């Protein structure tokens, strides 16, 4: 930014020439124009004194919206939302018991072992049943559901209940996706073929069940929501297996189920924000 106090932005002849060339003047034209432009500094502008600026700021400050220090602090805290979310998630990790991490990994390992051992079973069916079991576990551990009456406590904290829920979801889904990557790596190393299809058979139903369970947890307790969601999925699996409609669970359909799960998650998060007054315990 040019110094407005004393100088012009193009003080030296070569700077003026470059500016004239930039606007399309030839070297001869630029040389011809230099003396006239060199005289522009002979008409200086007035400079505001420090006191002038201070008075101007005082007049303008009246126009600024009055904002409480608390609201300002919250705004400053919300500047870098991703960093804050990650910080909340990091703090929330300690709330997950070791059992959650171990049992989830064990379920995944059992699914992988069944597939890799090439037993005479429907491998995809095993994965479709075991993947959502992780969602069931995650919902039980991560979400308190309605009735625990922790909402008032959460509302008193700086992170909102929505931020807490998103942070916990990020932990659960992040860990599940990590296990899914390990699973697909195991399939790839085990030369099972159809690595993508098998991985999707595990991951997409998981997304569906976690979305459904999270949505239901707004109305039910966490254990009830997780049980209803997982039981519903098992019922669908049973129906498709017994009625010969397993073609409904091929890759495109599985991707569709995963998308439905994501949509349910988004709806649940939006509902969490709007339903807060209703979720508070009634006197």
């Amino acid at each position, binding site marked *: *930014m*040019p110094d*407005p*106090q004393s100088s*012009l*932005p*193009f003080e030296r002849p070569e700077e003026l020439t470059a*500016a*004239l060339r*930039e*606007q*399309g*003047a030839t070297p001869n034209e630029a040389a*011809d*124009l230099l*003396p*006239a*432009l060199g*005289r*522009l*500094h*002979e*008409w*200086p*502008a*007035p*400079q*505001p004194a420090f006191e*002038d*600026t*201070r008075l*101007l*700021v005082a*007049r*303008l*400050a009246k*126009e*600024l*919206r*009055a*904002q409480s220090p608390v*609201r*300002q602090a919250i*705004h400053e805290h919300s500047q870098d939302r991703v960093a804050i979310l990650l910080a909340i998630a990091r703090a929330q990790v300690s709330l997950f018991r070791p059992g959650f991490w171990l049992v989830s990994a064990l379920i995944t390992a059992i699914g992988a072992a069944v597939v890799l051992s090439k037993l005479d079973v429907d491998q995809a069916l095993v994965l479709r049943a075991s993947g959502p079991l992780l969602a069931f576990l995650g919902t039980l551990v991560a979400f308190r559901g309605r009735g625990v009456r922790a909402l008032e406590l959460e509302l008193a904290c700086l992170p909102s209940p929505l931020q807490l829920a998103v942070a916990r979801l990020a932990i659960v889904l992040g860990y599940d996706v990590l296990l899914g990557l390990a699973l697909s790596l195991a399939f790839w190393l085990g030369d099972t073929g159809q690595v993508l299809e098998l991985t999707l058979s595990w991951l997409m139903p998981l997304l569906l069940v976690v979305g459904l369970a999270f949505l239901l947890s707004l109305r039910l307790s966490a254990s009830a929501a997780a049980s209803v969601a997982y039981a519903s999925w098992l019922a669908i699996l049973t129906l498709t297996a017994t009625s010969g409609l397993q073609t409904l669970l091929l890759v495109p359909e599985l991707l569709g189920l995963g998308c439905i799960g994501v949509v349910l998650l988004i709806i649940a998060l939006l509902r969490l924000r709007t339903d807060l007054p209703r979720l508070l315990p009634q006197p």
Partner: protein
Amino acid sequence: MQEKSDEELMAAVMSGDQRALPLLVGRYHALLLGYLYRLIGGDRPLAEDLVQETLLRVLQQRTYRSDRPFKPWVYTIATNLAKDHLKSAAVRYGSRTREEGDPLVNLSDNEASPEERALAAERSREVRAAVAGLGEEYRGVVVLRFYQGLKLQEIAETLQIPLGTVKSRLSVGVDRLRNVLSQSSRGVG
């Protein structure tokens, strides 16, 4: 600590941060005063009023987006206010002369003799008259370019005209300046 950009300061001001306002005004007070003073032909009190009005509009408009460059935006507001003023009936019928008062000169009292001061004032009047005589559309681009140091693209955004038009107006504007100032130089010399 890294200095905040104009856009960051403006976003802070819009969110009600009282600390950002003096920083933003400090950056733009002198710039806008110089711009408006030259755009309206050298009337300092009027230029000061227009600076305050420009910054008030900046604060009152709730439409600013931080992904939009601040400098061209604030210059656009200043330009439009100056245009409105120049179009007003009072100015059109010359109720307020813009030739009144001695122009500012670069020489300080300690350095200059009375003759030198008189000559500097005369030369300053010539430049002021030459810039004022450019016509509104040429004066704007010349002042933005050679007094305010805006880039060509920033001028295009400020005046909301194509880049090619900026270049052609600059070309005509500096050519007219040369014609006027070279004649007056011969006259003075």
